[in-house]
């Protein structure tokens, strides 16, 4: 199982969770947390599609670094990051992180840490396509602020 994946293809959240959990059971990790981000209509209510641009090379490097740090800080048994780029339809999964640990607090914190860093430190940019045209999604101050707790 690749633990950092950047791809344009749709993926199956459930199959990813099951594959990850199967490996974790062998590592004696009882707590598995997943976060999935779905394309939704953030701003206007009439989203046709989402397009995600990324920085090939840097993306993989940034995600691997974030993952390593999460594993060390929260004593994770393992962690997986999967993020799409390109065009996606409303309701499709954009990305997913999964963490495993012996204790649930670590698995939860590890997943939140991954998400906070991924939101503001991994080179992805979202663009919403609506009937009115295309618009880059603005970064939220809350996302930047979320990093200060770690």
């Amino acid at each position, binding site marked *: 199982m690749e633990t950092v994946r950047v791809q344009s293809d749709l993926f199956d959240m459930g199959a990813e969770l099951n594959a990850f959990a199967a490996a974790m059971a062998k590592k004696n990790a009882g707590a598995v947390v997943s976060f999935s*981000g779905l394309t939704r209509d953030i701003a206007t209510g009439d989203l046709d599609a989402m397009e*995600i*641009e*990324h*920085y090939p*090379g*840097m993306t993989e*490097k*940034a995600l691997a670094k974030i993952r390593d740090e999460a594993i060390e800080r929260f004593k994770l048994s393992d962690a997986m990051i999967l*993020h799409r780029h390109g065009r996606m339809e409303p309701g499709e999964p*954009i*990305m997913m992180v999964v963490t495993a640990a012996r204790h649930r607090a670590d698995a939860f914190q590890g997943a939140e840490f991954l*998400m906070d860093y*991924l*939101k*503001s*430190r*991994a*080179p*992805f*940019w*979202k*663009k919403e396509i609506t009937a009115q045209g295309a618009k*880059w*999604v*603005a*970064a939220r101050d809350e*996302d*930047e602020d979320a990093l200060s707790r770690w």
Partner: protein
Amino acid sequence: MKRDLRYFAWLRERIGTGHESIETEAATVADLIEELRQRDEAYAFAFSDTAAIRAALDQDLVELDTPLGDAREVAFFPPMTGG
């Protein structure tokens, strides 16, 4: 020194290209931004608000006051919106 510049998202759109190679004597990322801004209106517009600019040297995120050093690839982009 020769540097490969990369632009992403609305920076790429405003500048009109995602990639160019330039010769520059700029010492820091901020110096390079200032140099680019002088070029023409498109660059001036793209780099008008430095608070909204993020930069990476050889694919590592850096502050704008970072010396360019021997970085071969310098990338500029808006705040990231992944996840």
